């Protein structure tokens, strides 16, 4: 709540600052810059991309044993960096909590944020979303020896079931869409919702299927999928509003990674983090218009 307030206050004061900066820029600009500069030009001139992402959510953005940031979100940033500089490693990471995703974009702390950001109408009023790079859905994970066999058993148990879930404004509604009577416990971070299941505080974890798949792959035979998925949501990187040139560039880079010359990069990343092979895009008539 507080953060969104700050974000709004920031917006207004930032605009004032922006106007000021723009006037100064106009005064100082020589004939070399006759057109309004895009973030694209700034980033190219700077020589590296400033990417906002988190560091505590596998398989999206997390640290390897040797302290390197990795994950599917990070790879999306690397795709854009490769398109910019021909080198996926030319990135300066800004580590941010989920709450900081939008403020850090609107205050220019980052060029772009890729941090499993669900596209919503409200958010799209504050930042500009690039094209989707993943379609997420929610699943339920149970302990391997759980008294509930599957989704039907969970639903039948009604209010006796406690579901642990990642803290979010729509977390409660999300769980209740599948289990209308279940008790919902919200936690700050992903490891805590698993901890709640492990310690018996909850009977099931409801979170992104990608995260569940990753977790079950890391802990074979200890957990099971309840076999039900719902709540589709689109993940997309976001940039600041009002810079179509930069947004187009990010879109193009991601689009070609999913359908064109960089498909192998995307497919390799997908295989690494989600364990599935992607069929290459059909050659001939563009897949986008099927």
């Amino acid at each position, binding site marked *: 709540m507080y953060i969104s307030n700050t974000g709004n206050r920031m917006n207004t004061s930032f605009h004032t600052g922006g106007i000021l900066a723009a006037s100064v820029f106009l005064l100082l600009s020589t004939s070399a810059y006759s057109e309004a500069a895009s973030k694209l030009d700034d980033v190219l001139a700077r020589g590296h991309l400033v990417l906002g992402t988190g560091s*505590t959510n596998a398989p999206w953005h997390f640290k390897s044993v040797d302290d390197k940031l990795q994950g599917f979100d990070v790879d999306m940033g690397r795709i854009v960096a490769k398109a910019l500089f021909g080198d996926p490693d030319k990135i300066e990471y800004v580590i941010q909590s989920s709450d900081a995703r939008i403020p850090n974009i609107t205050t220019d702390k980052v060029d772009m944020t890729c941090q499993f950001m669900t596209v919503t109408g409200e958010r799209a009023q504050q930042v500009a979303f690039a094209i989707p790079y993943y379609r997420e859905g929610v699943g339920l994970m149970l302990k391997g020896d759980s008294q509930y066999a599957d989704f039907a058993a969970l639903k039948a148990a009604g209010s006796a079931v406690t579901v642990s879930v990642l803290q979010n404004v729509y977390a409660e509604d999300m769980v209740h869409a599948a289990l209308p009577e279940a008790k919902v416990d919200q936690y700050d971070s992903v490891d805590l919702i698993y901890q709640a299941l492990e*310690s018996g505080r909850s009977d099931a974890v409801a979170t992104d299927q990608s995260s569940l798949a990753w977790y079950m792959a890391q802990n074979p035979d200890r957990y099971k999928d309840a076999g039900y998925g719902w709540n589709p949501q689109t993940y997309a990187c976001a940039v600041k509003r009002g810079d179509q040139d930069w947004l187009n560039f990010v879109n193009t880079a991601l689009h070609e990674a999913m359908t064109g010359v960089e498909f192998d990069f995307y497919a390799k990343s997908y295989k690494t983090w989600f364990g599935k092979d992607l069929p290459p895009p059909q050659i001939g008539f563009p897949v986008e218009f099927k």
Partner: protein
Amino acid sequence: MAPSLFDQLWLARNVILSGLGLTVSISLLAILAGSVLGVFVGLSLTYGNRWLRLVVRVYTDIIRGTPVLVLVLASYYVSSAVGVNLDPFSAGVLALAVFCSSHVGEIVRGGLQAIPKGQTEAAKAIGLTFGQTFAYVLWPQALRQFLPAWVNTAAEMVKASTLLSVIGVAELLLRTQEIISRNFMSLQFYFFAGALYFVVNYGIERFGKYVERKTAVPS
């Protein structure tokens, strides 16, 4: 495969140490800067003229009445809105130092005002200037008064440094969370981080006790 805690701790040793190092440096910087600033705040509150007292009182009350997290976020985002653009580390240290200064200021004021007025009058009567009165009569007594409370505030600063993880400062808590997101051993690693915080704060407490002993009136 059940990874042993010791293997995981050993794997993460450098990450944990760098987090601990950052936590200690954040805390030290914030406590030092906050204490220096806080002494000025305390002096202004005690000996300032009416206007200075009013301004400093408003500052202290606003800062003390604001959650540290709010100060941290404000310092990070407001600075960039006014064009200073502090990096997360500096913004965080600034917020903690400001918060620390308001507490130290109140502690100093309390310590000074607890000294009976008669002493100042007596010092004046034997011809001491205000500077001499302060240095030889008031300050040594006030110091003993506020040391325990100051140690308390210093320990609070170490704990408040965890809030910097929100703006992406890789201090001990964020480092711990990063490790947990990889190996999911949340209980063990949070417990370990808690133990490290205890060690740091216990060190501060021992240091405070040591200074208290050194400054105690010999009996």
